């Protein structure tokens, strides 16, 4: 065996740079920056995001792309199939469906977004407080949720709609008043489970305040289910509005949401299929996009999935 000769003088203490010692190799990233980085890697989610952006853009400019407004009627040209004159055809009153579909997009998307964001926010805060504190607080808070929950959804919404003046605002209020309940329950369930996990115990031991534990630890950790809820609440809100339109409780004519248009179209499915196809297609596309995005967000926002 060959002896390697290393002179002892070669061994010198390394220079101790206190600054460098404390540095972290990986650049520090905020929670959201990290989420965005990972979202970008998820191709399906990006597709969803692009579709949603396109739909929103079309909702804004679509109604102005041809000479008709959403309410202009040419009765003699009712029920025309798609053509170079009417890109999506016309409806039973001879109104241009292209304009109506994009005008409907505004209403449906608005209902979807506003209802979903308000209800999820309320539900999340409510649910995490309830789940975290447990005991008496939880008991009372969940009792209230349960009471609201116990009223059949549809009956409740219809009653609310009838009590208030029909219209867009009422729809959003009525739907929002119902949807936050399920979020609250799910978040509470998650928090109940999470709060017994070690990292919460650790945070508490380190003296973290309650609000900090809820906001920094519990809510981010329940983001997965919340996002899933959110992606399901948007279509649900859009659907529920469609159903209300079907009962005559939707937005007031001649305005029309996608649900209203689709409901109009399904009746004419055999004679004028395009009247169903376009609104139904865009509803489905929207749902698909939200779901793809939702899944991507879910992976991106879950702190335990950080690599």
């Amino acid at each position: 065996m060959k002896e390697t000769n290393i002179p002892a003088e070669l061994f010198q203490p390394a220079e101790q740079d206190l600054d460098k010692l404390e540095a972290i190799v990986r650049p520090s990233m905020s929670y959201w920056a990290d989420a965005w980085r990972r979202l970008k890697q998820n191709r399906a989610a990006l597709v969803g995001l692009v579709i949603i952006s396109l739909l929103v853009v079309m909702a804004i400019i679509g109604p102005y792309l041809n000479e008709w407004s959403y309410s202009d009627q040419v009765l003699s040209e009712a029920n025309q199939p798609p053509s170079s004159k009417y890109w999506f055809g016309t409806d039973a009153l001879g109104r241009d469906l292209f304009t109506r579909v994009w005008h409907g997009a505004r209403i449906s998307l608005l209902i979807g977004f506003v209802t979903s964001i308000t209800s999820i926010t309320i539900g999340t805060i409510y649910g995490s407080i309830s789940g975290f504190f447990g005991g008496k607080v939880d008991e009372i808070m969940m009792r209230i949720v349960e009471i609201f929950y116990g009223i059949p959804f549809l009956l409740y919404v219809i009653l609310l709609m009838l009590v208030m003046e029909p219209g867009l605002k009422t729809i959003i209020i009525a739907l929002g008043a119902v949807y936050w309940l399920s979020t609250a329950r799910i978040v509470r369930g998650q928090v109940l489970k999470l709060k017994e996990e070690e990292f919460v115990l650790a945070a508490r031991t380190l003296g973290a305040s309650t609000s900090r534990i809820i906001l920094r630890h519990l809510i981010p950790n329940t983001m997965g289910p919340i996002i899933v809820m959110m992606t399901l609440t948007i279509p649900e809100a859009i659907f529920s509005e469609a159903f209300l339109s079907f009962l005559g409780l939707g937005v007031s004519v001649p305005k029309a949401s996608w649900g209203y248009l689709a409901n109009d179209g399904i009746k004419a499915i055999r004679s004028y299929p395009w009247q169903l196809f376009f609104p139904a297609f865009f509803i489905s596309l929207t749902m698909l996009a939200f779901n793809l995005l939702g899944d991507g967000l879910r992976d991106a926002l879950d702190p335990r999935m950080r690599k």
Partner: protein
Amino acid sequence: MSYLLRKLSSSLLALLVIITITFILMHVIPGGPFDSEKKLPEPILKNLNARYHLDDPLWVQYVDYLKNLARGDLGPSFKYETRTVNDIIREGFPVSATLGAIVILIALFVGLFLGVIAALNQNKWQDYGAILLATMGVSVPSFIVAGLVMYIFAVKLRWFPPALWEGPKSMVLPVISLAGLPTAVIARLMRSSMLEVLNQDYIKTAKAKGLATKVIIYRHALRNAILPVITYLGPAIAGIFTGSFVVENIFAIPGLGKWFVQSITNRDYSVILGVTVFYSALLIFMNMLVDIAYAIVDPRIKLSDMKE
């Protein structure tokens, strides 16, 4: 047992509040059960109101209702004069519940399967396929699905009858129209929570111990991942079992679902209250089952913790 007793008594209180809210709301909305396009002469309206005690002060009607309810009597329908609300529920609920049970079963099997497959193959084609399939379930409103399947399978292909409740064949189209949504929800919930569970330390520990993947999935992951699904299942069953207005309306199914809308349109006060009470009671019951199920499945949660 004391949990159940406590739960029961507080549920009664909840029911009372629900009845009160509904009672107030339904009397706030304009109109009454005897509105018709051809307006009835005053004396006839008076006779009708007297017959159904609608001329009593509201609080008397309220107290009377509660008294009758305590005896299990939900009162007569104001619109369908020989039918009582008890009859309506007794006849409609089994129909809706049968349909609902089939729907839930299918949704559970298909949804769990898709969710697990997707989670185990995260970001592979199985994942995308399963999620795409599940997404289609939430992408199309049920009235469109119902209209389409009726057109395709009943009118064009003549495989199934278009409507009425006459034997297993007539259940197929309504089940298809209803199953999409819960299947999708279950698949997505399952995928989401399964992914979460698979990342937990005890799964890693199990892997490190060299346990077979199958064992890990079935013994450890599934059981914990199913919690959100169970949470969802409670209210979902209550909702689906009490019927869907759209599907019952389109396929002419004599279920309970249509009453939740029709009773309001008719201002059939006793039916509005009756279906509300029934639904609420069912929901409370299902949620109690969920709590119990939670305690059984998740050892970290004990029933005694659930002070509600």
